[in-house]
């Protein structure tokens, strides 16, 4: 059954919000921005960015429409499986950001073992023994192997550096 024009319009707006179209839009934004910036470079420096950026922008624009059309023709997926995958996705991005912020703030040796412990225990519901074992193993590798054995100093983290003055 064909959707009526009234139904098709919200579907297309929804399609624009979809990840598929958004990814293509992000690529388009990257190419357009970089191409515009390249116009300010000297002649020899802007050759390659423009040579790639201009057709890239055009291709990305075409792809936005291709993805938009493909998405708006797909059936709306609002089932339980989709919602669960979406929730898991959010959780994984949360953990990735936590690793990023934690390591940036408190460095590898302090933050990484605690993050491994937290993710195993609270994020993945592993037993305390497994989580603690993982954290100790991480600390042993980071501190024991890198800092002590290989003498490679790891990033201390901005907060730790600030606290140390």
């Amino acid at each position: 059954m064909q959707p009526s024009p009234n139904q098709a319009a919200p579907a297309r707006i929804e399609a624009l919000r979809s990840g598929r179209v958004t990814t293509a839009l992000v690529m388009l934004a990257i190419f357009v921005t970089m191409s515009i910036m390249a116009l300010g470079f000297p002649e020899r420096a802007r050759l390659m960015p423009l040579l790639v950026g201009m057709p890239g922008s055009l291709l990305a624009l075409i792809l936005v429409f291709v993805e938009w059309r493909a998405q708006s023709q797909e059936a709306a997926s609002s089932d339980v499986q989709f919602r669960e995958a979406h929730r898991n996705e959010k959780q994984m991005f949360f953990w990735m950001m936590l690793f990023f912020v934690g390591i940036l703030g408190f460095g590898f040796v302090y933050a990484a073992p605690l993050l491994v412990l937290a993710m195993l225990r609270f994020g993945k519901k592993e037993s305390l023994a497994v989580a603690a074992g993982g954290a100790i193993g991480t600390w042993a590798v980071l501190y024991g192997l890198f800092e002590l054995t290989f003498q490679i100093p790891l990033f201390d983290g901005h907060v730790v550096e600030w606290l140390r003055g």
Partner: protein
Amino acid sequence: MEIGGVFAALLNVVGSPYLMGLMLIAVPAGMLFGAVPGLGGKLGIVLAIPFVFGMEPLAGAIFLISMHSVVHTGGAIPSILFGVPGTGPDAATIVDGLPMTRKGEAGRAIGAALGASGVGGVIGGLFLFAILPLLRPVVLAFGPAEFFLLALFGITFIAMLAGDSLMKGLLVGMFGLMMACVNLDPQTGTQRYTFDQLFLWDGVDIITAVLGIFAIPEMIALGVAGGSMAQLGKPSASFGLRGVLGGIGDVFRHWGLTLRTSIIGAFIGMIPGLGGEAASWICYGHAVQSSKTPERFGAGAVEGVIAPETANNSKEGGSLLPTLFFGVPGSSGMAILLGAFVMLGIQPGPALALGGMDVVWALIWALMLANILAVIMFFALAPGFSYLSYVRGSLLIPFVFTLAYLGAYLSQRAWENLVLLTALGALGYFMKKYDWPRPPFVIGLILGPIVEDSFHKAMALWGPAFLLRPGALFMLALIALSLGIYLVQMRNKRRRDLSAA
């Protein structure tokens, strides 16, 4: 070719307990990365970067090449036992490997894969030795014009790495080329897209980019899907060493096939961008074509395991050749290895043929020795490897996150790379989720600077007439031929799809 130098390099490797010790660590590590689906050789190299950082260049390179050369040996295990390919090129092994397991011949299939991988790896190395005397004069004849066109030739393979979506593949390749422009322009000294950040003056760090585009998205996807990497079936009970020995014997019983597919695999490996998937499937097709009883294939023919597995390992030898002498990676795995070599202080390119042949010989020997070591070590490790496919994602993810951030930081000792890694990781995940092929990005990022730099040099030396040099004309013909073959393949595929529909 200096025979003395060749064997001196072998003695240098074999006679060094340090180098042999590194290989003894690298071989099981490489097999582990191959055996756990979703990890793979590329991620293995990237995660090993922190461990080789600061090592002497040759030792670090031997560690990485040993690890990389046996990835597919490990990758055959979940393919055969559970029908889950450890890496992309191992997919062809499933076709006959899984039916062999169902028939109670898992041990034989594993043995055949192991033997074929070992023999393939050694023949791939020998192929390199055989072709080097012919290659060296050609390599030395290469100037900026030829390099520009060779890099362009590599870039045309972006289309072939694109998979089902050519448009997305091209765009991702262009994205890689654009990212390659982020630097202090070597021609004019202009800052391009650096936003006054010192860590971007030398360009986007390849290791960080690869970790962001591959490792982080794989872990997010694993966390989203839940469970373990492989959940199909249970490890086979008939995992006896007798069966494994029988399978190894099959490799030598079918010696003609083993030899042919090894050479085909090595040759395909030499062509940048064709990739391991092409090598294993072409060799599988050759095994079916050359068999007197092709109807057995797909139902558990041991030749169906031997052919793709020899190709998988022999192509590594072949792809080492353009990687080392032209700086053009033969595969996406080699692209990452190339970045690691540069980081270690080994500069691939024609200069290596002039002053670094001892390093080249040592790496070829290491490649062959690693394959032999893998066969020997596998007997003890095989049962343990079969359980690796059941490692829960929840146990794997936090460690890979830690290693990814560690690798990104250590590659340039720049905390800013953590920001870059997170941003590229998020983008990479959505690229994976929405079927954007990611390998073209690496090809673009690596070949972009070669294209740009050699183009400006060629123009300065010869002007537009550089395209009329004999070498340049040959390369142009090669590009035209490669694109022609691709278009014919695409047309045939479309016809097949239409007739199947």
